[in-house]
């Protein structure tokens, strides 16, 4: 196994012996099995694994959308397992960004309103210069007054990424952000996420089952049966496919 050469970098989020168990006795399912994983700041990590491997569960637990059965989940200096429902919500609002596969935008709000939504919920103006910069980076500056249904699928996802970026969160979680779009659009979205890491220093964790999408990341973590079984640095679609074939075999 390759040891991580990036221990020098600060950790944005980590799981320590995190387990998530559904049911009990004979019907017990270990979705996460005492996972230890850390996501470094300023890096783009992909989580891969076959269906039912627990990759989405890991992401939900790391992001404070779901709770672990045992172990710890830490974002920055905060142990999520100690937070109340309300504090978890506020943490998500202020410190975490999200990009989902679909239904990313509120249909009644314009693109720019969707981007500033977490700040509006917090009742703060946010950093308007930064928001302008993010909007500029999406390349949608002339379309921000439009409603989501007037935007293409790719444009919608770029708005979603922009929303995740706008609040300068400690970490962004993306769940299959390109699962619903064609390959050109996917490249457009992933390129935008890549540049957010490179040029804005963002931390992104993305769940995907697409080797091409995962190849945009700096590091790929492989999950099987709730355990981390492998990881890969500087991945290419080819190396990722090889690893997956090995894991599947």
């Amino acid at each position, binding site marked *: 196994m390759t040891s991580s050469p990036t221990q020098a970098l600060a950790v944005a989020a980590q799981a320590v012996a995190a387990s998530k168990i559904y049911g009990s006795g004979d019907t017990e399912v270990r979705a996460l099995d005492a996972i230890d994983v850390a996501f470094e700041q300023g890096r783009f990590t992909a989580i891969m694994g076959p269906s039912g491997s627990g990759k989405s569960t890991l992401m939900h637990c790391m992001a404070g959308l779901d709770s672990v059965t045992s172990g710890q989940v830490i974002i920055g200096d905060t142990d999520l397992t100690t937070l109340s429902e309300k504090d978890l*919500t506020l943490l998500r609002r202020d410190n975490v960004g999200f990009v*989902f596969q*679909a239904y990313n935008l*509120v*249909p*009644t709000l314009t693109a720019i309103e969707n981007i500033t939504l977490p700040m*509006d*919920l917090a009742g703060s103006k946010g950093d308007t210069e930064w928001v302008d910069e993010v909007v500029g980076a999406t390349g949608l500056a002339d379309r921000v007054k439009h409603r989501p249904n007037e935007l293409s699928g790719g444009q919608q996802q770029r708005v979603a990424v922009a929303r995740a970026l706008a609040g300068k969160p400690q970490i962004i979680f993306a769940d299959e952000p390109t699962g619903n779009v064609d390959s050109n659009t996917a490249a457009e979205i992933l390129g935008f996420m890549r540049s957010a890491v490179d040029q804005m220093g963002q931390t992104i964790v993305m769940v995907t089952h697409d080797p091409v999408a995962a190849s945009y990341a700096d590091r790929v973590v492989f999950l099987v049966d709730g355990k981390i079984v492998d990881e890969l640095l500087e991945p290419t679609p080819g190396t990722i496919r090889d690893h997956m074939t090995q894991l599947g075999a």
Partner: protein
Amino acid sequence: MFKLALRSLIDKKLRFALTTLVVVIGVMFVVGSFTLTDSLRSTFAGLAQDIARGADLTVRVDQTFGGDFERATVPEAVAEQVAGVEGVDLARPELAALNVFIVDRDGEPIRPPGPPALGFSFNPGSFFITEGQQPVAPGEFATDTVTAANNDLRIGETYQINGPLDVEPFELVGLFNFGSPDSHTGLGQTMAAFELDEAQRFFGMEDGYQAVGVLVSAGADVSEVQARLEAELGDDYRVITQEVDAAEQEEDFNQVVDIFNTVLLVFAFIAVFVSAFIINNTFQIIIGQRVREIGLWRAIGATPAQVSRSVITESAIVGALSTVIGIGLGLVLALGLRAILEVIGFPLPPGPLTLQPRTVVLALLVGLGVTMVSSIAPAIRARKISPVAALSQDFQLGATGLRRRLITGGAVLAAGVVSLAAGMTAGLDTTPTFVLLGVGAVLAFVGMNTVSPVFARPAASALGRPAKAFFGMPGRLGRDNASRNPRRTASTAGALLIGLALMGLAAVVGESVKKTVDNILDNAVEADYFIQSAATGFGPPPGFPARVADEVEALPEVESVMRIQWAFSGLSVEGEPRDIVAADMTLADDHFDPQVSSGDMAATDPLTSLALHSDSAESLGVGVGDTVEATFPDNQTETLTVVAVYEDAAIYGNWLIDGALWDSHFNRNDLAFASARIAGLSGAAGEAEQAALLQKSRAAVNEVIDRYPTVKVENQAEFRQTQESQLTAIIRVIQVLIGLSFVIALIGIINTLSLSVFERIHEIGLLRSVGMTRKQLRRSIYWEALIVAVFGGLLGVAVGTVFGVATALALPESFVQVVAVPWLDLVVFVVISAVAGLLAAILPAIRAGRMNILDAIAHE
């Protein structure tokens, strides 16, 4: 398809329950009203038979029109003649009078709040002594066992009794059951019975009897005796059998039951009408949510007809189940209403509830019919769903274009307005007027609801502006969601609209009546004191002893007293019964100015004079100096000369005769109303002197009034206040009853909001994951409800105001002369509907808050 429909219902229990509940309420009202009134009818039929059982035959003066108490009396000589006819074993004269109040030992008159206080001559045929003995001498009376028990009246004690003429003390000598020896049959009336001659004297009916009851000799044939009596007495008299007597009594009772039934049915109709909106709305939303599922059916081979059939089957199941539950709850409602009636003073005799087949059929028609008709439009929409819908992400269900809505809705609305306008101008004949107004109102409601989606979005967006401005993102989202689907917003608001429009209508009409009374008090009233019965309750105040007016008139401080009596159908002119008022015509102008436009009331012989409102004069084509043939309830016809025509019908109605003419044709001696003017008041110099005069005269008048426990006196200010508070009370009762439709509208809002929240589950999941707190989420739903409710409230109040003004203009001038709009009340109604909206949002908001974020995101 039936299986699919059933499964879809079982899967969505809450939605099913809410829809069912709405239908149940409608059915419940229909069943409740019919069951109660059917039960009342059968009870009254029994009561009527009990009452009639006292005599084999009854002899009365033949009466072509008018009430029982206005009928001419049977002279004593005729009663003796009856006794002499072959086969007559006993001829028992009968007397009855209204407003005979027993005063309890604390000096309080015993007044049943609804039913009358009656006086009788003691009739051993239907009064059965249970304790003591029957009254046989002057100064004695008997009362019914229930009145005695309720008011602790004891045999041997002496009580004051208010008769039509005076107050006198009587000793209670016996208690009786009415109708049957075993139990008292009554509807809450109080009964005081006197020896026959004493009753004649006390009631002021010395010259005859109201009826003569006949018992036939043993072995005699009743119909032969009837024939002999008819031959002996001639056409002026009617001889009726026990059966006919019972049937006539029953008919009288049924007239009351019919009014009651109509009132209940109006509420049932409102409930059903409001329900129909909500059911339709619910089915529309459900279809919208099931687009994918239906698309899948279509993809795997279901035909459009099968799809719409499944929607209609689903509604049929809801309708059938609701009808069954509604019938059950309707029976409970009937019992509840009976209990409420008893509490407010109309104790109904106990009896089994009658559920007639007709009621069940109606319940089915309403429950099943309304539900299925409401599902037709959604079913048609469902069949247009294509198989592709199952596959595509954002399939939007086609809906009637807003432009088409504007056109059809506008047409219906216009038809409604035309009908309303026709109703307003239809003139004095009130029945077609109100039919036109009713049809117009229903059309206008439907039209309004078809059109309202067109302006639902701009309205909701405007109403939501403050929410957005002051309450940040939750307010903003609430506003957006309210204006997102204008059809849904409009039809949810529509349920509120109906109730509020009716409340608004009642408020405007009520305020106009109030202002009219104010106006009359300001301009027409010249008298200083007003004397009437102190008994308050339902209906017009009862009469009071005529003696009071005599005593007040005798006071040196009093310049004049005017006595007023009145009767529905007290006069027949050109074959039409007319309501009449009797007053001293020499004083009529001085006490209340009716704005005489021609002639002079006091000019000629009061026994042949008639004064008319200009409307009546116009429709008869007569003027001052012309003569009118008028028949009285005692069958006598007089030629009356029109001496004056006046413009203000508020006090004297349309037909006014002199008290002297009344006395010669009517047996009722109690007064309905009297007014007094103070001597020297107009000549008094300065306010101080006037005040002193008023104070002195009030003391003197009070001294007289205090001797009569059932009578009260009021000055102008007090009189005005009493009139206003009575009107306000009536309007409030009506509004509270209409407010019931609020409950249904509330369920409608809960329903729509729950379904909308369910529909937006992804969005809510998203909002929660990017950091919307539960509190913020709940708040956005409250805002949404608030905006929808205020929209409905404003529309309702606007429609209600228009309807109210229309109705006020249509009402005859004797009710409404000034059209007034109670702005404050209308604002309060909008606030009430806002509060209702917030209440309705509580449940959906809590449910939305509790929603698991992951489920919401993952939801398919």
